[in-house]
């Protein structure tokens, strides 16, 4: 510092010394100072200073500045890097095992992922409504005196709505009444289509926060308005702007399109709602409401939805409005017996806790638990593969472990190493599983009839995915990590490590567990399919094939029946035509108040009551046990009645034909006398698993509107031809309605939909579980064969035959699978006989199911193991003994 004038700017000099990498600091500083010194001589101090500053700034480059945390790394990041590298090399060295491991885990993970998505889909039902927590259905709740538990009924009576809207309005933010949803015909100029819709109060679109594409939510203030869903607007008007166009409902009411809303998503209560029209139109179309239902506390026919004010609790408001529910005097006693009360049925329970109670109901929560359980089990199967293969191959890595220990690894570090390897494999499998899931989703949706999408853009999904990888890696890696890190280095390195007789025991237990689950799943699937098949083969009591059913959806149909029938019969494609109150595959009406000779006066049974036209028996293909069908030529048949087998059994009549059956109508105590003229075989009209209801059929007349036309086609004729002929007649006679029909056999098959879905999903999962287990077995078998190469060589030299060796290698595995079958059989019997109890009409579980499944599992095991066993047995002993 003898010449202080020749020093560069101090701050920049310090700055340089601060940021520069220590390894480079001295000589770059030297360079800087040398140049600075020359510059001072040539250009003077000021310019030299500027140049120095510029140089210092230009030196701020990634290659020159020091690393942020110091140039000597202070964490063990490098160690993990090395673990991953070693893990990666191990994967590459044993490609076969890696493929088995990764594909097994990937299958397990994608099953778990699909199940997770399904559960998420179910749990997020209705969540897209903004007022999710504040919407309720006004319902009646009571105790089920027969089956136990509560029931909830959401169809309520007119005066309740009036009462809530006038006397209790202060408790609610919004109230909307709606009709029940039905199919209607919507028509624009030329297009007629059938659509599901509701007549609603004007606040309805606001309660359910309709997402309007055009128009406003409060448009229903105008009783001439209508709101359409985007999809129905498109099919009615194509690409034209639908606003202010005219739409006719059932060719009767002309409404003006006042808005278009986005269709509701698949997991929403209103996913099928295609239009909403004002409540006033409903009232004017159903004049009986204002005439008779105004003060009728017995007639349940409408629904009420409420939205409570923000910050209030549903329970609180429920307590306030409870007195609004009243009963007709004659129902008073029954109501207090059942403890009937007003219940604000919260939106969060609509899907997960459905209304009906009792044993035969569909319980989504149970389904969700079941699906979750299967997902977890399949994932565990895959993790078991990983554990078994890692521990089986432990001898190969024993030396590595021993050397690491000798050099100074503590056990915890080795555990970390094996965990990082299992995490590596889990991450690979996750990536594969993502692809598999994305590819499988459309198929899965098809089977489960859902519309689930991959939530790629949802951060929650990725968080869940990361957690999922971590858990899987932990689950799969825990046992190998603890086992492998426990080796004693001295013993291992001396080469005297003996795994001992019981080293393989945990592995065997795991294999038994794996096959147990697979076998239970297979048996379950078999039982589900058997049950469905059994119900399908149940005699239905009428002829389903060639029977088509047309619903009279609008007033255009009325008064046209005779003309329609004559023209249809004239086509030659139709055998017979009839009218009935409901479709063949449903019981739409039931009534109490029946009396007959010898009836126990203390009971009151409800019979299914169905009004039909003449010749319905011929059209439907009734099978008579006694008596005869209604006869057109006998006028007395108008008071005739036909009963079914179950009704006959219930009534306990010996000679039913000609007996009198009296019906007292509860509304006005009117008595109607009928005479039994025939008994038909039981028909499966409702659930194919439930016993047939006692049913009576009478001619249309006093009670019940025959809303359906049934057409029996000529058997054996070409279906498309017949349909075109029928359609032509319909178009001619009723040009204003679309010709929409249902096949009785298709409708009937739809009754199996839910069980078939369960069966198909179970089949897929069972197959995947089996594939995973077989993969694991394959890996273990190849390992055993490899390990015993020398032994097999010596045995062959001493005279063992191929079949000897094959038996020796396969025996162990077959034994294990046999044990799992023994364990699985009683377990699955217990589980699935419980499931079968849900059905009144059910199979007995046959022992053959267990025997065949067990045999199948053993054959599969033999096939899997034999490939390796035979290969090992065929190997030339010269080769296997020569090496080393």
């Amino acid at each position: 510092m003898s010449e202080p004038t020749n020093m560069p700017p101090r701050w920049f000099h310090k700055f340089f010394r601060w940021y520069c990498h220590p390894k480079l600091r001295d000589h770059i500083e030297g360079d800087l100072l040398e140049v600075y010194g020359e510059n001072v001589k040539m250009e003077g101090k000021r310019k030299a200073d500027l140049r120095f500053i510029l140089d210092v700034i230009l030196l701020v480059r990634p290659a020159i500045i020091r690393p942020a945390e110091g140039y000597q790394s202070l964490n063990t990041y490098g160690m993990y890097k090395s673990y991953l590298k070693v893990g990666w090399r191990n994967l590459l060295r044993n490609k076969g095992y890696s493929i088995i491991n990764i594909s097994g885990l990937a299958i397990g993970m994608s099953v778990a992922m699909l199940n997770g998505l399904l559960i998420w889909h179910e749990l997020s039902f209705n969540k897209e409504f903004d007022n999710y927590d504040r919407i309720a259905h006004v319902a009646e709740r009571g105790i089920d005196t027969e089956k136990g538990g509560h029931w909830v009924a959401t169809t309520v009576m007119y005066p309740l709505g009036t009462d809530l809207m006038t006397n209790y309005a202060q408790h609610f933010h919004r109230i909307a009444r709606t009709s029940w949803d039905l199919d209607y015909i919507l028509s624009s100029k030329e297009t007629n289509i059938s659509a599901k819709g509701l007549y609603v109060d004007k606040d309805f679109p606001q309660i359910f926060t309709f997402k309007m594409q055009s128009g406003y939510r409060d448009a229903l203030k105008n009783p001439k308005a209508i709101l359409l869903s985007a999809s129905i607007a498109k099919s009615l008007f194509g690409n034209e702007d639908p606003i202010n166009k005219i739409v006719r409902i059932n060719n009767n009411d002309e409404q003006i399109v006042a808005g278009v809303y986005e269709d509701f998503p698949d997991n929403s209560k209103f996913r099928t709602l295609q239009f909403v029209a004002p409540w006033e139109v409903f009232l004017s179309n159903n004049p009986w409401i204002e005439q008779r239902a105004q003060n009728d506390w017995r007639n349940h026919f409408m629904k009420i939805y409420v939205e409570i004010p923000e910050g209030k609790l549903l329970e609180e408001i429920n307590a306030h409005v409870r007195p609004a529910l009243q009963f007709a005097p004659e129902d008073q006693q029954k109501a207090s017996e059942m403890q009937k009360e007003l219940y604000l049925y919260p939106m969060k329970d609509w899907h997960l806790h459905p209304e009906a109670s009792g044993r035969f109901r569909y319980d989504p929560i149970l389904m969700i638990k079941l699906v979750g359980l299967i997902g977890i089990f399949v994932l565990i199967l895959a993790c078991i593969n990983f554990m078994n293969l890692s521990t089986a191959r432990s001898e190969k890595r024993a030396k590595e472990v021993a050397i690491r220990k000798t050099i100074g690894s503590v056990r915890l570090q080795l555990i970390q190493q094996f965990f990082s390897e299992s995490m590596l494999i889990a991450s690979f499998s996750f990536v594969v599983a993502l692809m598999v899931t994305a590819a499988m989703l459309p198929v899965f949706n098809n089977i489960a009839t859902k519309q689930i999408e991959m939530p790629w853009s949802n951060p929650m999904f990725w968080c869940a995915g990361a957690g999922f990888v971590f858990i899987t890696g932990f689950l799969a890696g825990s046992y190998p990590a603890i086992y492998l890190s426990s080796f004693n280095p001295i013993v291992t390195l001396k080469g005297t490590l003996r795994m001992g007789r019981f080293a393989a025991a945990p592995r065997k237990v795991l294999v038994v567990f794996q096959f147990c689950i697979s076998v239970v799943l297979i048996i379950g699937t078999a039982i589900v399919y058997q049950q469905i098949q059994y119900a399908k083969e149940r005699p239905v009591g009428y002829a389903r094939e060639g029977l088509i059913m047309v619903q009279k959806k609008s007033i255009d149909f009325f008064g046209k029946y005779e003309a329609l029938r004559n023209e249809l019969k004239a086509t030659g494609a139709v055998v017979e035509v009839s009218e009935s109150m409901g479709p063949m595959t449903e019981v739409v009406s039931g009534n109490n108040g029946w009396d007959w000779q010898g009836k126990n006066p203390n009971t009151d049974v409800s019979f299914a009551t169905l009004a039909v036209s003449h010749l319905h028996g011929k059209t439907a293909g009734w099978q008579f046990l006694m008596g005869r069908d209604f006869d057109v030529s006998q006028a007395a048949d108008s008071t005739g009645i036909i009963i079914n087998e179950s009704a006959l059994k219930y009534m306990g009549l010996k000679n039913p034909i000609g007996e009198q059956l009296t019906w007292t109508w509860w509304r006005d105590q009117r008595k109607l006398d009928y005479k039994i003229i025939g008994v038909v075989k039981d028909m499966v009209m409702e659930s194919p698993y439930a016993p047939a209801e006692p049913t009576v059929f009478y001619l249309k007349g006093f009670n019940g509107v025959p809303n359906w036309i049934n057409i029996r086609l000529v058997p054996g004729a070409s279906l498309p031809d017949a349909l075109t002929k029928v359609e032509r007649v319909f178009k001619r006679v009723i040009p204003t309605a679309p010709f929409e029909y249902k096949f009785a056999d298709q409708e009937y098959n739809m009754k199996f939909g839910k069980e078939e879905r369960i069966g198909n999903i179970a089949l897929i999962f069972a197959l995947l579980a089996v594939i995973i287990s077989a993969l694991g077995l394959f890996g273990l078998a190849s390992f055993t064969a490899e390990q015993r190469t020398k032994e097999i060589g010596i045995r062959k030299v001493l005279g063992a035959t191929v079949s000897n060796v094959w038996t020796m290698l396969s025996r162990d595995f077959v034994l294990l699978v046999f044990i799992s079958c023994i364990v699985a059989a009683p377990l699955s019997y217990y589980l699935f006989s419980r499931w079968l109890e849900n059905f009144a009409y059910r199979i007995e579980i046959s022992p053959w199911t267990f025997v065949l499944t067990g045999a199948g599992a053993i054959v599969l095991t033999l096939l899997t193991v034999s490939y390796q066993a035979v290969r090992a047995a065929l190997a030339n002993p010269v080769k296997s003994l020569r090496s080393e």
Partner: protein
Amino acid sequence: MKKYQLGEFEEIVLLTIAILHKEAYGVGIKAEIETRLGRNVSMGAMHTALVRLEDKGYIKSFDGEPTKERMGRPKKYFQITALGKKAMEYSKETRDALWSAIPKVALKLKAVTSEI
């Protein structure tokens, strides 16, 4: 796939180190490039290039003597390694191969257009 990674400026630095032969240190290299090529070289660009070349194993360094001009900071001399030599040769060969592949007409045409 590129056999030897060598950027344009890195190549210049490498060549200069070869020219200076055992006398190549920071300021020296900088001055040599500046006089020979007539272009300004910033300290940052050059030292980055030197760090990169050393990382790639094309050059190696050894410490020299501290001098008075450097206020006691040591010089760091650079020397080309065998790999560095190979990289230089590879780079030259590829260029020569490309040059020889140019049809004569192309160069003539270029000459004509530049005259106009």
